[in-house]
Every structure is written in structure tokens, then in C-alpha cells.
């Protein structure tokens, strides 16, 4: 048990403006690395990766004047802990009409932690097509990797303890319409 437990409501580490700036920087880094938005496809990992992917796409389109295809990639059936929990509801997978063959796919997720979600996403991607390259953008990297996976674009590196929980709230998905990243004491074991 943690020696000094945090308050359950947690400590905000990124507010809405921090998140906005991080996404703007990630958008520029994606463009720099790929020398434009030519073959890009952004795939968000539901749930919170999807609105993040859309926000990055809209930032890219204001900079480059190109519409980047955005989709979502559900990884539920590819999880390595599928058998450890009751059957989960599936989340939407939407591959943009142009497909992903020969494209540069940027996977977008909110928090990079063990790396297992991304491993599952790479497997899922394999069944959808063959991209020329796959890159990973995350809003928060909290460390504690269990697999040899790293992110190409990181909004914020957030050193955490395993007894903490990183909570990402996005206006598009929350009732209060507020963007925030906070660290909370882990009350019980969650994913």
C-alpha cells in the first residue's frame, strides 16, 4: 500500500491548455518526421485515442491544408488479458476508405503504460492491411513498460509509481466537457 496516499480526486498535471499545446507540438512533430501529411493515416485506439486522433488531424489540416484520414482501431479481441476478465463490449473499428496499405499509420492513444495495448494494436493492424510504417503518438507516457515498445511522439513524460493511476479526461467524452490529465491514488486494481 502506498505510504502517502493521494486524494482520490487526484492532482491535475495537465490542464486543457497544456493538453492543447502538447497536441499542437505532436502534430508538428508528425509533419516534420514524415515530411508532410502525404501518406498519413491517423488511427485512434478507443476510447480516448479517437478524439485525440481527430484533434491532431484538425491541427495538421490547419498547418498543411491537407485532410488527413482518421479512423479508429479496436483492440479488444487482440488483448492478451482477454481471458482474464468477463467478455468485454467491443468498441468501434473504422478504417478510412483509402485503407492503410502502403500508408504511414500513426496510432494514437492517451496513456502509454505497459505497452500491451500497443502490442495488441499492432496485431490488429496486421489483420487490416500492410502499412508502410507504423508510428505511435501518446498524450502521456507514464513508464513501466513490460514490452519493448516506445512512442515516437509524446505529449508529456509523466514519471509515476505503480500505486498511482493516470486519469485522462477529454471534453468529447466527459459530461463536464473538461480536458484534464490527473494522477490519482489507485483505489483498486484497474486496467
Amino acid at each position, binding site marked *: 500500500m502506498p505510504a502517502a496516499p493521494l486524494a482520490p480526486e487526484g492532482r491535475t498535471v495537465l490542464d486543457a491548455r497544456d493538453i492543447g499545446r502538447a497536441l499542437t507540438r505532436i502534430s508538428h512533430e508528425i509533419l516534420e518526421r514524415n515530411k508532410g501529411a502525404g501518406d498519413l493515416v491517423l488511427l485512434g485506439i478507443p476510447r480516448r485515442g479517437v478524439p485525440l486522433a481527430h484533434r491532431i488531424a484538425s491541427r495538421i489540416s490547419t498547418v498543411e491544408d491537407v485532410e488527413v484520414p482518421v479512423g479508429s482501431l*479496436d483492440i479488444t*479481441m*487482440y488483448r492478451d488479458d*482477454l*481471458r*482474464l*476478465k*468477463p*467478455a*468485454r*463490449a*467491443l*468498441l*468501434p*473499428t*473504422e*478504417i478510412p476508405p483509402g485503407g492503410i496499405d502502403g500508408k504511414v499509420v500513426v496510432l494514437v492513444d492517451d496513456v502509454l503504460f505497459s505497452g500491451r495495448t500497443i502490442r495488441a494494436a499492432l*496485431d490488429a493492424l496486421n*489483420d*487490416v*492491411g500492410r502499412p508502410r510504417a507504423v508510428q505511435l503518438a501518446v498524450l502521456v507516457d507514464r513508464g513501466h513498460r513490460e514490452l519493448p515498445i516506445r512512442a515516437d511522439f509524446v505529449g508529456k513524460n509523466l514519471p509515476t509509481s505503480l500505486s498511482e493511476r493516470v486519469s485522462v479526461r477529454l471534453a468529447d467524452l466527459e459530461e463536464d466537457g473538461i480536458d484534464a490529465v490527473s494522477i490519482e491514488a489507485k483505489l483498486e486494481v484497474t486496467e
Partner: protein
Amino acid sequence: MKRHLLSAADLTRDDAELVLETAAELRSLADRPIKKLPALRGRTVVNLFFEDSTRTRISFEAAAKRLSADVINFAAKGSSVSKGESLKDTALTLEAMGADAVVIRHGASGAPHRLANSGWVRSSVVNAGDGTHEHPTQALLDAFTLWRHLGEERKGGLEGRRVAIVGDILHSRVARSNALLLKTLGVDVTLVGPPTLLPVGVESWGVETSYDLDAVIPKVDAVMMLRVQRERMQGGFFPTPREYSRRYGLDGRRMATLQDHTIVMHPGPMVRGMEITADVADSDRSVIVEQVTNGVAVRMAVLYLLLGGSESESTE
């Protein structure tokens, strides 16, 4: 969800909606280059069919294979059952082989229930049609088809929609499962047929009944036609097939009285010219072929929800 799917009545509204939502996600798999998901890798699904069936068995087989399960097909014809083996001994054999799910079709009403609750097998049991009792996955695929056409874009889903189920209700496990499930989903169901083909005790099903097709169909959002199951009939339930068609068949003239958005369904196999005419079956309103496509997605959803997660959670 419970561990078995024996009756449409086992499903709460939340369960049923979870199946429909899962099926909606799985349906898009048909458009992908690799029509396979790894969810049931290493699991074994046995199709145990004591009665003839083409579409249901193929549909379950395709569903299990697309989820990467191993499938064993067991047809009673040509097996030890034709030598006199009992359901119990067949079940023990399957258990010894390590089946994770048994999909059973049987001519006797209640056979799946017996299999699930006898302690003979530990696997999940899915009823794929038992006698004149139930056929819950058919009801789910019908509900899914209705939902795609009449409920998806609508607040409350299928709540308050009206469906007529027409024909041989007495012998139809499809009608019984549909009546139960559609009621759970808030649909107003009317069963239409000649008095001889409405079952005793139908008033306790909680649905409307009518003998007059022409009075019912202009008001409904979907018409589900049923086959007259002559193989289950001994004696005269109606004077002649021709008279049956005239009063309870769906032809072009009756179709013209439907509302513009009303769809026509049939669980198959159809007898063209008897309960439905060819021009209706092949018309734009007919979603009969789509029902078959949806059947695979719905059965994938059922198998995934029954077998995809951990076993410990399944409380009965």
C-alpha cells in the same frame, strides 16, 4: 450474460442490446481483407445437429471459424446416434473431447436445457433450435436486422416499433423466440395466423393476436412471414394450401398496403407461392438475404460473449 443461451427469455434487455451492439461491430469484419479475429483461439465449438439444417449450421460454423475457434461438426445422421446412442452418451463423448461450447439443434423441445443442466458437460450450450420450442439466435438476428433498419438511428432503439409475425405460429420456434425477445426490446408484436395455427396459451405470451392479416399489416413496421411446417403437421390445420395463401400469404397486392418504410422478413427456408410470393420475396422491401448475412455476425457476437472472457464470472 448467462453461461448458456437456451431461450430468448434468458436475455435481459441489456444482454440483448449488448449482443446487437457487438454484432454491429463484428458485421464490418465482412468488408475486411482478413475476415478473422483471434478472440476464440484454442477454443473448441461443437455443432451438434440432430435435425437437418443448412443455414443455421453453416452460419454457426462460419461464425466460430471467423473467431478462430476450432469447429467440430456432428450430424446425427451417420453417427452413433443412428445406432441408438443416447443424448447423454453423446454429450459425455463431447465432454471427453474438451468442447468449450456445444451448439445443439434437436427435434425434442427442451433437449438443450437437458444438456446444459444435467451436469453431463461443462461447456456453454447454445440452443440452435429445439423442436417447436425456441430458436434464440434466429430471434437475435431478426432483432438485429430490425434494429439496423428501424432502430439504429432512433432514440430508444426498437421501442414502440410494431412487428407482425404471420403464419404457422403453432409449430414455430422462431415465432416464440421472437415474441419473447422483441417484447424484451420494447417492440409491439402481433401474431397473425388461422386459429388452428395459434398455440394454446398464446394469451400468456404478452403479445397481440389476430386472424386478419389485411387489418394488421398496414399498421406495422415489419412483417415476418413464417413457413408452414407441414412436416410437423398431422391432420388438417387449414382446408387447402391455396386457401391458406389467399388469407395468410404475402403477395403483391398485400404488399401495396404496407407503409413505405415497412420491411419484409422471412427466417427461411421459404416456400415461394405458399406464404410469400416470388415478387414479394425479391422486392426492395425484402431483407431476407440480409438476414442470412446478419446471422453470422449475431452468432459471432453470441459465441464471443459466451466464450470470449473468463469463465469464473459466469454466474448462473
